């Protein structure tokens, strides 16, 4: 019986990135390994969803405005280009670091409002979610489904294995 292929070969096979001989070997393995076949099916389901990702339209006016901003910056005297948002971020980072050291909460994780639905039909809008004590959260709401859900789970994720290609551990 073949040895199970290392897990990451499944993703590479799915993406057509394996050399032919390795791909053939992986295909032969699936016939005799239900676990790998199931894992492949699960990975394929995620890959199939990738085609549905889309970004919002940007108008000509917005592109032109962005170009105007770029032009101004590249014509400005040569200095470190930190926009307003980035300066604010630097300040906020320093302030938040100060607060974090004074707080007693461990593993602080912050999750701001979900921009994907402005005001859902059920009008339950999540503005803020924070977890601690080894937990993570995710939240979602769909305007059409009228449902707002906040999910709380322990955040004990497995470590990513060593990078076999680079030999690091």
């Amino acid at each position, binding site marked *: 019986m073949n040895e199970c292929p290392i897990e990451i070969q499944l993703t590479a096979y799915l993406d057509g990135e394996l050399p032919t001989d390795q791909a053939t070997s992986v295909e032969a393995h699936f016939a005799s390994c239900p676990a790998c076949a199931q894992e492949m099916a699960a990975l394929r389901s995620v*890959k199939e*969803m990738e085609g*549905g990702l889309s970004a919002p339209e940007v108008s000509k006016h917005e592109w032109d405005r962005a170009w105007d901003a770029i032009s101004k910056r590249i014509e400005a005297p040569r200095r470190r280009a930190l926009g307003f948002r980035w300066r604010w971020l630097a300040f906020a980072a320093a302030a938040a670091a100060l607060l974090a050291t004074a707080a007693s909460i461990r593993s602080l994780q912050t999750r701001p409002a979900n921009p994907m639905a402005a005001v859902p039909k059920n009008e339950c809008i999540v503005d*803020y979610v924070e977890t601690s004590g080894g937990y993570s959260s995710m939240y*979602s709401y769909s305007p059409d489904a009228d449902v707002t859900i906040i999910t709380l789970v*322990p955040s004990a*994720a497995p470590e990513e294995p060593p990078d076999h290609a680079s030999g690091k551990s």
Partner: protein
Amino acid sequence: MSAVEDRHDDDAELVRRTLSNDRDAFGGLYERYRERVFRVAYHFVHNKADALDLCQEVFVRAYESLASFRGEARFSTWLMRIASNTCVDFCRQARVRKAGELDEGMITGDERLPETTSTPRPTAGLEREEARAALEAAIAQLTPEHRAVFILHAVEEMSYEEIAQAVGCPIGTVMSRLHYARKRLRGLLAWFDRS
């Protein structure tokens, strides 16, 4: 000459003219690649305004470092590297922002992701819009480094080799990060499976 090689030569010509102080040439590069850069930025931050700001930042950084573009790799790959680094930097810095002070909200991810302990299920039963929304919410849970590899592959359909050049790591690392990104997404999406 193939279309790809034509584009490569065109880009090299636009870079040469930009370095000779032809700002219209840089405008040409902007028009050619702005949508790609915006798409990558948008899938990092899920906020149109932030994505447009990041897009500006990417092109400014590209302009400022254009002299270091040697033309050995494709310009698009070089630009994607700047885009990826800029977005990863932004996400890392945004982790310490207070949630209540964000405008419109930007999804940040956390380092440690929950993995479902039960058998992961395919998401075949989700309606398309709900599936897209669930996937985008889950992508936001990835670390910036995993998000970069996933977005460059899933959104920009770059090959592992191109992604390795763009993010500056070995192909094996790209493979590993993409695999674990998909596993984590699968784990998160398993909670939202109707089938």
